[in-house]
């Protein structure tokens, strides 16, 4: 039972990190209706900044700089590439983000090479023991940080003028523009916020028990895609629920993989995708996504 509790808490913590990534993804989709396939590269960029800067600057300034750096990269992608395409077909725009992803990922993996970079986090491999349950400090930090950021984000989304502009743009771009919402700024802001959230997620994807930032980190970040999809692409609640579902599934499947040996090694990494396919079979718009209605 205590191992189950450990898996569950680890899964929730991992899931909250996925939720952070998925949230950024959903924000970009809501503000611009563009699916950002370069999201994993944004995350890798944020993680790389922190890894490079933590030695000269110390961890906390490096984290701040990495977050800002990833936000700048996100904003730059929006400003230099996506803005030039506004009004084009959305599936074409999605492919443009794939082009951006190829560029960013090639550059970052070339820089990282075969190294495993440490991010210099203060938690190390310390653990907390609560009765029979042993949890790594990093996992608790991840859970708290993600909860904090998500709450702050949702509050901003609801109460600030930026959030209102974003929601207005998501409802109807044209009406929002006529009401004086500057769509360029909304979309720039969305990309920057997504980059910043991804950078924080990069930190918690690479701390203990994971060895550090490596090329494969982008693959882990990809699991936020099924998270966003199974929750429903246009729903922030969906991103949270999807992230948690994916995290818990992955953690349980990895934890009990000896019992699931007939499914082959590494079933934990596959589980998020299987859950996504299962959910999509039943609910094609995801759990919380808006069902597509067409009036003819």
């Amino acid at each position, binding site marked *: 039972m205590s191992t189950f509790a450990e898996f569950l808490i680890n899964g929730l913590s991992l899931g909250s990190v996925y939720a952070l990534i998925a949230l950024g993804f959903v924000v970009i*989709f809501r503000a611009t209706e563009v*699916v950002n*396939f370069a999201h994993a590269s944004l995350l890798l960029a944020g993680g790389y900044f922190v890894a490079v800067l933590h030695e000269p600057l110390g961890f906390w300034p490096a984290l701040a700089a990495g977050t800002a750096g990833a936000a700048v990269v996100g904003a730059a992608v929006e400003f230099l*590439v996506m803005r*030039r*395409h506004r*009004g*084009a*077909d*959305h*599936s*074409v725009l*999605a*492919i*443009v983000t*794939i*082009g*951006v*992803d*190829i*560029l960013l990922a*090639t*550059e970052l993996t*070339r820089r990282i090479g075969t190294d495993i970079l440490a991010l210099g986090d203060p938690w190390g491999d310390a653990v907390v023991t609560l009765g029979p349950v042993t949890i790594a400090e990093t996992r608790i930090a991840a859970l708290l940080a993600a909860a904090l950021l998500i709450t702050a984000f949702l509050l901003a989304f609801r109460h600030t003028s930026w959030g209102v502009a974003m929601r207005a743009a998501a409802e109807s771009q044209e009406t929002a523009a006529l009401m004086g919402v500057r769509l360029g700024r909304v979309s720039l802001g969305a990309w920057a916020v997504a980059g910043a959230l991804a950078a924080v997620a990069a930190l918690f994807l690479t701390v203990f028990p994971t060895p550090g930032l490596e090329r494969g980190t982008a693959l882990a970040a*990809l699991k936020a*895609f*099924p998270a*966003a*999809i199974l929750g429903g*692409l246009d729903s922030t609640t969906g991103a949270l629920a999807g992230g948690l579902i994916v995290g818990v599934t992955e953690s349980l499947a990895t934890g009990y993989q000896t019992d699931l040996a007939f*499914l*082959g*090694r*590494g*079933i934990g*990494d*596959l589980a998020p*995708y*299987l859950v*996504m*396919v299962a959910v*999509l*079979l039943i609910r*094609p*718009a*995801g759990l919380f996504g808006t069902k*597509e209605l*067409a009036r*003819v």
Partner: protein
Amino acid sequence: MSERRGIPAKAYAYAAAGLVLLALPFYLERFWLQAGLFAIAAAIGAVGINLLTGATGQLSMGHAFFLAVGAYGYCALAGDGTDGLSGLGLPGWLAAVLAVGLAGLAGGAFSPIAGRLHGAYLGIATLALIFIGQHVLFNAHGLTGGYNGRAVPPLNLFGLTFDDTELLVLQVPFGSVEKLWYLGLALLLGGVAFARGVLRGRPGRAMNAIRDHRIAAGVLGIPVARHRAAVFVLSSMYAGLAGVLLALVFQRTVPEYFGMALSLEYLAMIVIGGLGSVAGAVAGGVFVALLPQLLGRYAEALPLVSAPGTGGVAPGEAARYLYGAAVVGVVLFLPGGLARLVARTPIHRPSGESR
């Protein structure tokens, strides 16, 4: 290109290009023929995904999976089991045909998803295929050979074996690549002709209608879900064919090759070539497949590119920069891709929401 006289000039150009392609094995060394065969296989696969993503507007990230089904399907059907891996020992040609059919079946099995989802949902759902594929390839040792992959049995066709036993044709020794070159050309020609036929006929119009306005297409009486599923199957069969050809050229299939990067490459090909255009898909496929080979071959002569492992930009990476930038640049500056450069007719430009 002077096309003032219309069809005759074009026919001459095609005939000349055809003759050059047929003569190449007599003059080129093995390296270039192999690179050319990669390009041919890529072109076949690109024509397939272009039917799906370009002509029907269904984003697919799972093309690599169907290539893997084709490649491994061929190995499993043609293998004789002597290497300890399961194989049915079928004759090569039958195995190749069945492997393509198998890829189509795999595409059909995905149709509950492919027929119902569209846009980003389909794109990410097909992402699952890659990971499922990789998982199976690494774990089903008896079938795929696991991490080390498995050797590809040579193809037999009309008593001719496509292996390295040398065959003298006009004093030129023909090895596997020379023989496969002609097979590849024939397959590409057939694939292109079939795709053009599909696009020009009723199914092609239905596909374009689905891309441009799904609801309007449905109202016009086009069975949207069935068409989407059918195009998915057809595109998978093209991918399976490309996979079989690639396996024959590589002579060994390894699971790592069929990862996500390969799927992204195929999307890059059709964007660079021009979405929805068969000729564009071929051009994009040749471009993306030849680029790393060219850069690798001339790495010393090129500035900014250095041999792998020396710390600089390796040829493979340089190629990825180039086609990544090409994807972004083409959509920015050349909507319609390479096909647009040649075609004089105005291209279709999708406008607004394609729901």
